[in-house]
């Protein structure tokens, strides 16, 4: 596959635009960078061969405007468009519009994006491919007797959910048959009053849940997995710390979930980089499929560090028509990697955002820091707060933690308040060191933790 002389339009900003730029340059591609009027000074603009103004600072008027972005890429003569993550990366209409304009979309087809973006369709595709999903009732549960027959199959505790509900509203938790008999009529009455529909269904609650996700890469016919990442440390459903491999999976559990993920990827003819997200329940050694992300993810570097594969280069090569260059039998886990997300937020003040001007930057030599920062850069206030990702690699998890503590001690980003102090505290927290933190851990820990001022 000869890529030299071809051009790639980057429809994103921040650190991922820099990451895609470097991958594209390594492949010999010319880089055209789209940017809003608030991003004329960003690092990815400075590194690009050409730049195109996408419009005003508000993302809805620039990075999220499908017609504007497609026209900008087409008019610049781009051969392909890389969407990064966030913004239009999982927008099926955008993927289709890029192709309709005669360009390559770096990612799966619009149809695959649409199918996997629909919760019900994705769950059905998962079940059809033999991917485990959270056990529950097949549909609506009409009576207490019917609910009991479901719980005899799936066990307790169960969540009683309103079909017409959403966002966690109206959920009740039953620990046993007596709870079920008491709560079902209550939930029916409440759902009927709140939503005009008293239909209920049951789903088993996952206790001590860990967030485990499998990286896959496919070329439309064949797919491989690149093992799992664990991202259980989350605040407000935002991941802050990611690792590969997971601290809790046995080899058998890993083989099981990775094989299931390949089945789903191949069943849908997946093309490009994708991630299947699961909850893992250690006590039952069970996985439950949550959703599939049809793009490169923020935390992809930890997978790159343990496998030696450049995921962004591979997804670009595949988009330009090359077959998958990876062989499953040649992929191995080498050591352990940890990534922490350095955000422009003050963890000692309820994570208040802190856009500002970057002073001196000091990054230790033996770490990877994927970042949008340079000295003197003014971080704009219009976008998310991710400044960069500090990534370490060690011979094993204990070694990676040691390297992380050392790196956090040496790292300086002057002029900004960042989440670095949060990670200095977390890297010394016994539960984190022991690999015992579940998805609920960080928020409860933050209620009492003392974090030094940034």
């Amino acid at each position, binding site marked *: 596959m000869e890529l030299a002389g071809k051009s790639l339009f980057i429809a994103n900003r921040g650190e991922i635009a820099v990451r895609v730029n470097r991958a594209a340059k390594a492949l010999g591609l010319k880089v055209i960078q789209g940017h809003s009027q608030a991003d004329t000074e960003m690092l990815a603009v400075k590194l690009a061969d050409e730049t195109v103004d996408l419009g*005003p*600072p508000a993302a809805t008027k620039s990075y999220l405007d499908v017609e504007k972005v497609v026209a900008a890429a087409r008019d610049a003569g781009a051969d392909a468009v890389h969407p990064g993550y966030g913004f239009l990366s999982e927008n099926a209409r955008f993927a289709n519009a890029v192709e309709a304009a005669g360009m390559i979309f770096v990612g799966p087809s619009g149809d695959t994006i649409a199918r996997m973006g629909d919760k019900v369709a994705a769950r059905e595709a998962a079940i059809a491919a033999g991917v485990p999903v959270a056990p529950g009732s097949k549909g609506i549960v009409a009576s207490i007797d019917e609910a009991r027959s479901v719980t005899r199959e799936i066990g307790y505790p169960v969540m009683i959910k309103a079909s017409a509900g959403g966002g966690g509203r109206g959920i009740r938790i039953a620990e046993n048959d007596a709870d079920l008999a008491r709560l079902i009529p209550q939930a029916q009455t409440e759902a009927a009053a709140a939503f005009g529909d008293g239909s209920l269904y049951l789903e088993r609650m996952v206790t001590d849940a860990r967030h485990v996700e499998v990286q896959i890469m496919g070329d439309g016919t064949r797919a491989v997995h690149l093992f799992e990442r664990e991202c259980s440390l989350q605040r407000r459903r935002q991941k802050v710390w990611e690792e590969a491999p997971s601290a809790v999976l046995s080899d058998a559990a890993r083989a099981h979930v990775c094989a299931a993920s390949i089945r789903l990827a191949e069943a849908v003819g997946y093309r490009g980089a994708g991630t299947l997200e699961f909850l893992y329940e250690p006590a039952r050694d069970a996985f439950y499929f949550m959703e599939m992300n049809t793009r490169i993810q923020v935390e992809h570097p930890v997978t790159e560090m343990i496998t030696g594969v450049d995921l962004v280069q591979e997804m670009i090569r595949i988009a330009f028509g090359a077959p998958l260059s990876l062989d499953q039998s040649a992929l191995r886990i080498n050591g352990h990697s940890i990534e922490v997300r350095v955000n*422009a937020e003050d963890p000692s003040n309820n994570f208040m955002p802190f*856009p500002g001007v970057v002073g001196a930057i000091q990054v230790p030599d033996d770490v990877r820091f994927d970042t949008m920062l340079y000295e003197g850069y003014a971080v704009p*206030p*219009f976008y*998310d*707060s991710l400044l960069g990702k500090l990534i370490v690699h060690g011979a094993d998890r204990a070694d990676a933690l040691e390297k992380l503590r050392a790196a956090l001690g040496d790292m300086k980003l002057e002029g900004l308040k960042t989440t670095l102090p949060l990670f200095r505290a977390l890297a010394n927290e016994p539960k984190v060191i022991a690999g015992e933190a579940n998805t609920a851990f960080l928020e409860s820990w933050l209620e009492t933790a003392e974090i030094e001022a940034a």
Partner: protein
Amino acid sequence: MSKQILSPLPGTFYRKPSPDEPPFVADGGPVAVGDTIGLVEVMKTFHEVKAEISGTNARFAVENEEPVMAGALLVELD
């Protein structure tokens, strides 16, 4: 002598709680101490801008969804 309310943060200024609702403060309307006069979105989080002064005949210097710098004039009052 007119009175001014400045933006406490840099970001995107919103005059309405959501696109389908009326503005927090109508053009030419009154403002009381403690009233929310708008929102500033900074890095995807929203902060209410509360009036520390009162006045009448509100004249906005910034349109809905316009970018603002910290310290930028948002509204003048009599």
